[in-house]
């Protein structure tokens, strides 16, 4: 009897300790693997926001939700997981940040995937409240819509197969076959400024990447940020070469004439340097690149 008790007591203590340990371990793992959880976001959903003279903000406020135009096929920037329906990427994070500053919580955001060619009409028709998705600020587009930002600066780059040693920069493109999306700015640039380069155009960049992998084309060209997204997906087969040879400034597309909202977002970018850096490091920065936040243009 005596022996039994002396044997059982330490056992009980050990069991209790193990239970306590496993419980606390449980709590620990539940908290840590979700850096995107609300508690970990570098910003808070704002209360009592008021922007006078912004028709877009009035719409958002009265409906209580925000409709954001995004890309769904660009890994690292704007990407929709086909299985879960979750959006991820740097552009998505910027879009959520803007929504939070406007006082809209995450569950009130409606993402609408809109391809490049339809962006201006989606904004002018009011299908979306704003657009965040590798949207280059250009003078021509400024005539149709307004841009807040830029929030990111990149430029045209080149993606080649990992074992390719003949293309090291845009100077090596002569006689090569370069692929990009149908009618995109990068392909128009190649046609105009790189004579002697063959061009191939498919509907999407992913088709170009497929053609690159199967050897039908020698390089894929578009904004380097987009290419880094593909390279980070398949680092064993693809690589980005050279330095960006154009300048593309990504802005937030807004309805033309909504100056109040544009200034509000610009101020948010200007004041939110640390937030920007954290959002970048959590998304596109995973590819190993270090960049600075660009200065906002208050044109």
């Amino acid at each position, binding site marked *: 009897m005596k022996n039994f008790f002396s044997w059982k007591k330490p056992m009980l203590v050990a069991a209790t300790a193990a239970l306590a340990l496993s419980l606390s371990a449980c709590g620990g793992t539940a908290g840590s693997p979700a850096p995107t959880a609300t508690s970990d976001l570098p910003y808070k959903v704002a209360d009592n926001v008021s922007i006078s003279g912004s028709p877009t903000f009035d719409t958002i406020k009265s409906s209580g939700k925000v409709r954001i135009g995004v890309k769904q096929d660009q890994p690292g920037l704007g990407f929709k997981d086909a299985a879960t329906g979750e959006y991820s990427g740097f552009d998505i994070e910027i879009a959520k940040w803007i929504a939070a500053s406007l006082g809209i919580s995450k569950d009130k955001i409606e993402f609408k995937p809109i391809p490049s060619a339809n962006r201006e009409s989606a904004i002018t028709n009011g299908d979306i409240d704003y657009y965040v998705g590798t949207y280059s600020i250009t003078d021509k587009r400024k005539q149709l819509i307004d841009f807040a930002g830029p929030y990111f600066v990149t430029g045209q780059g080149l993606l080649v197969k990992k074992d390719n040693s003949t293309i090291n920069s845009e100077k090596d493109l002569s006689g090569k076959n370069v692929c990009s999306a*149908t009618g995109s700015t990068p392909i128009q640039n190649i046609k105009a400024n790189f004579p002697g380069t063959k061009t191939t155009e498919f509907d999407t960049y992913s088709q170009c990447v497929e053609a690159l992998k199967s050897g039908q084309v020698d390089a894929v060209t578009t904004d380097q940020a987009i290419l880094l997204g593909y390279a980070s997906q398949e680092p064993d087969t693809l690589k980005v070469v050279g330095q960006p040879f154009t300048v593309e400034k990504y802005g937030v597309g807004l309805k033309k004439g909504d100056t109040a909202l544009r200034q509000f977002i610009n101020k948010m970018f200007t004041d939110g340097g640390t937030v920007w850096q954290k959002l970048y490091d959590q998304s596109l920065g995973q590819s190993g690149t270090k960049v600075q936040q660009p200065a906002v243009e208050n044109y």
Partner: protein
Amino acid sequence: MNTLLNNSDLFITGFRNTLILFFFAAIFALILGTVVATLRVSPVPAMRAAATLYVNVVRNTPLTLVLFFFALGYPKLGLVPIDFMTAAIIGLSLYTATYVAEAVRSGINTVPVGQAEAARAIGLPFTQTLTLVILPQAFRAVIPPMFSVFIALLKNTTVAAGFSVFEAGAIRANLSERGEPAMAGLLWVALVFIALVFILSAAQRKLEQKWKVDR
């Protein structure tokens, strides 16, 4: 109007390539389609089976898939390399030929059996019965459906824009990147298509009048 004038390079090259696609695909489809139609009414069972299989397989495949095969699948077979324009012409021709074949076959069915029997009675072999007696009558019976097929082909050429052929279907994407209003661009493309279809319709009316059968 500015959209059209400032980007006339896009519109001219785009529609030129559309017309090239249409012209060659129409000719090849007409020839191949007629051959297939005659095979489908030929007395040899193997020929009939082969033609029926071709029509049913290709006609039931979406055009996008047919072009997808020629643009991305064919090069992987390691045969003679072809450029995207040629690939698009081949794809469009093979696809349209099935519709031409069915139109011609319906025309052949309108020719009274007595015509073929009379031809055979005067000693004409199958090929001559077909080319001298039946097909000429068949063709003039099917002018309206045949032109519908060609009008569809003209518009189908725009699918090739997704496979690296710069034609009318690619104009909008180019314009959008140049920051031109999408609506104006689309309207101009639509307007040129309407004009082209109008020309085809006029040709159809002319042929109908010329080959009119008095019944």
